[in-house]
């Protein structure tokens, strides 16, 4: 009894077989090949499971987490309370907190670069950083250059008045003929002089001067950014209150250089998550105090059709790419596997048979997780896309191996004899006579496997591969229109699968006409 036999015996004894059973199973394994599969299957499965378990338990502790990528964002560091340096010289502020929150949500390390407002867009476009999280308002002008995320906060021009004295002032209209302050050159000044000529607009060099004159009663009110004002009230304990609604609104977004729809979509998802988790509301409370409440929730629902189309197409490109590569690898694996399955009983057949059965008998989703989360544990760092391709290749190979096997079975044995009688070598018999026929017979089933594999790519969205389903999810997280976009995705798949299915049907008919597999 060789080593293998002994291992078998041990396993079988563990399974509760008596020695007699074992002896019998051995006889059947080695003398009557037909029973090889049945008796060996369960035991092999067990051995495989044991091997995997051992592999993982030995290797897992030694593995370190792979280093995450980094998200680089820019802001000015000169715009309190959004970004500024605190007493300890640490960069801090609302935008800094948002940056950290987004990065955490994306699972990336964050790098924040403080740069001048002047060159900040140029820096973004030249790729010095991935995004600007620096309170940039979304304007039509800027949108020509960059792609904006959904707004992450809304602000705008706000009138502030003295909280104790001017209780009768409800809105800017109550201030006709009175003195209202604004910083010289800011949009608020232009707004006041243009839209409210009856108000006496008093300009100052900085907000600090405005607060001074507010406190000593020289001003009846001032207009500044709603959140900046709120922060002053909160941090400097100024006795001001916002009066009336926003004079005009500004939506702040995160601009990115064009051509990164995937990162953009992920950032949008991250922002949405931060909002729904209450993270944003907390930040508003932390930085803007009294004006926080009605600014916390930012909803948009806007995404340009161009961006949507681009995202879906790019996603479908990834889908098709993954499907094609997996099909190719799977097929290349399936041919030898199918040949082994069709061949004479051997240990190799047993291994292939068990593997194929195991893969076919377990959910693709689990296989995907197994590869994706398992690979790092054995020291392999593979990207989600690679994991997806590996999983789908193996899964496709298992199904296609069966197809190849039945294709080979459908070739009449006389064909092989006839080819041998003509003097063809074993390889050439396969290459020129058996395989071409088996392949033609297998084509309809292979096409069906391909269709199944193409559909299975939808599953890899769960390991954050930016294929079309994932892209659709990103779009839906912004637009809140699941029906529409899932239907579009379904159609995209159908456009590919329908001709394939038709083709398979046609081929099958043609095969019958050509007289295959029925002589």
């Amino acid at each position: 009894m060789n080593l293998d036999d002994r291992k078998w015996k041990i396993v079988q004894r563990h399974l509760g077989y008596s020695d007699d059973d074992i002896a019998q199973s051995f006889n059947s394994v080695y003398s009557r090949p037909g029973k090889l599969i049945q008796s060996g299957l369960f035991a092999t499965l067990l051995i495989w499971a044991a091997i995997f378990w051992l592999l993982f338990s030995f290797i897992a502790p030694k593995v370190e987490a792979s280093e995450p990528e980094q998200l680089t964002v820019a802001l000015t560091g000169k715009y309190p309370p959004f970004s500024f340096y605190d007493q300890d010289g640490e960069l801090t502020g609302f935008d800094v907190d948002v940056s950290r929150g987004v990065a955490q949500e994306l699972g990336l390390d964050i790098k924040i670069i403080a740069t001048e407002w002047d060159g900040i867009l140029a820096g973004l476009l030249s790729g010095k950083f991935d995004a600007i999280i620096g309170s940039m308002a979304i304007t039509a002008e800027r949108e020509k250059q960059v792609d904006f995320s959904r707004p992450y906060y809304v602000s705008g021009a706000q009138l502030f008045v003295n909280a104790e004295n001017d209780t009768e002032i409800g809105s800017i209209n109550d201030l006709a003929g009175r003195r209202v302050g604004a910083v010289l050159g800011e949009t608020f000044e232009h707004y006041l002089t243009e839209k409210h000529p009856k108000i006496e607009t008093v300009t100052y060099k900085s907000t600090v001067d405005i607060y001074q004159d507010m406190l000593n009663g020289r001003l009846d009110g001032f207009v500044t950014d709603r959140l900046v004002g709120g922060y002053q009230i909160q941090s400097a304990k100024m006795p001001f209150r916002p009066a009336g609604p926003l004079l005009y609104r500004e939506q702040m977004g995160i601009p990115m250089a064009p051509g990164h729809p995937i990162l953009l979509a992920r950032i949008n998802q991250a922002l949405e998550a931060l909002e729904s988790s209450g993270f944003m509301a907390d930040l508003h409370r932390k930085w803007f105090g009294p004006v926080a409440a009605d600014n916390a929730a930012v909803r948009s629902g806007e995404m340009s059709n161009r961006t949507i189309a681009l995202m879906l197409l790019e996603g479908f490109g990834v889908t098709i790419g993954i499907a094609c590569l997996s099909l190719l690898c799977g097929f290349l694996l399936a041919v030898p596997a199918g040949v082994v399955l069709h061949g004479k009983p051997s240990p190799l057949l047993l291994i292939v048979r068990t593997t194929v059965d195991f893969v076919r008998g377990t959910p693709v989703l689990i296989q995907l997780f197994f590869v994706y989360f398992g690979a790092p544990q054995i020291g392999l760092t593979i990207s989600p896309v690679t994991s997806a391709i590996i999983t789908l290749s193996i899964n496709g190979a298992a199904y296609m191996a069966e197809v190849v096997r039945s294709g080979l079975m459908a070739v009449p044995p006389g064909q092989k004899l006839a080819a041998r009688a003509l003097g063809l070598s074993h390889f050439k018999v396969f290459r020129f006579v058996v395989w071409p026929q088996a392949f033609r017979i297998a084509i309809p089933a292979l096409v069906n496997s391909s269709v199944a594999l193409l559909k299975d790519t939808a599953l890899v969205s769960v390991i954050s591969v930016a294929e079309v389903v994932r892209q659709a999810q990103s779009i839906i997280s912004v637009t809140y229109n699941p029906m529409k976009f899932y239907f579009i995705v379904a159609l995209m798949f159908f456009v590919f699968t329908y001709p394939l299915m038709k083709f398979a049907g046609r081929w099958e008919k043609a095969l019958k006409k050509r007289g295959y597999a029925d002589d």
Partner: protein
Amino acid sequence: MIKVTGLEFTYPDGTTALADISIDLSFDDDEHITAIVGPSGSGKTTLLQCLARFLTPGQGSIEIDGIPAISMSEAQFRSKVGVVFQNLNLFPHLNVLDNLTLAPVEVAGMDKGDAEREAMEMLERVGVSNLVRSYPSQLSGGQAQRVAIARALVLKPDFLLLDEPTSALDINTTNALAELLEDLHSSTNFIIVTHDIPFVRKVAKRAVLIQGGRVVSHDLVEKVMHLFLQQNENR
């Protein structure tokens, strides 16, 4: 010359199909066709499969022109002995021409153009040169039979084994086949396994009668036929 000595073959299930076969099939200038006849189950196909080296006999030996078949290389053996199967086994995915050129090109290493020229010549000889581009599924039984014979003959074997060549043919095509074999026999010796007696009468001078895996008679066709018919009647 094919010399069979003490051939015995038992199938894995224990059926002894050939008990003890010894025959000398010597061909000479005016004798190129030998028939092997016998009732159903007598072992004809098994014998042919042994002669074609598809089955390995348990005992006994086969010599081809004085050389033991088992000692020959596959290439050497296949170049000497061709087979036409009962169900022909034409390659359905290849057209007639490609059925004929596959082996010359892939085995003999012949140039594709040369192989096609020779194949055309052979198809003309067997009378189906109009079908070169047809696929096997488009051929009639008789046409397919001729293509199968042509496919074996392009390799110029010294011996060609045919298993029940007339089983799928009607009387006219059977007659045509008989004529064809007579035309072709100058360069190749035929060994025909069959129980089609009229056909044997037409094409062969000598026949081997086997029964129960043994040679009962090896003689002139008329004598063997007589014996065969007599024994069939006795049953």
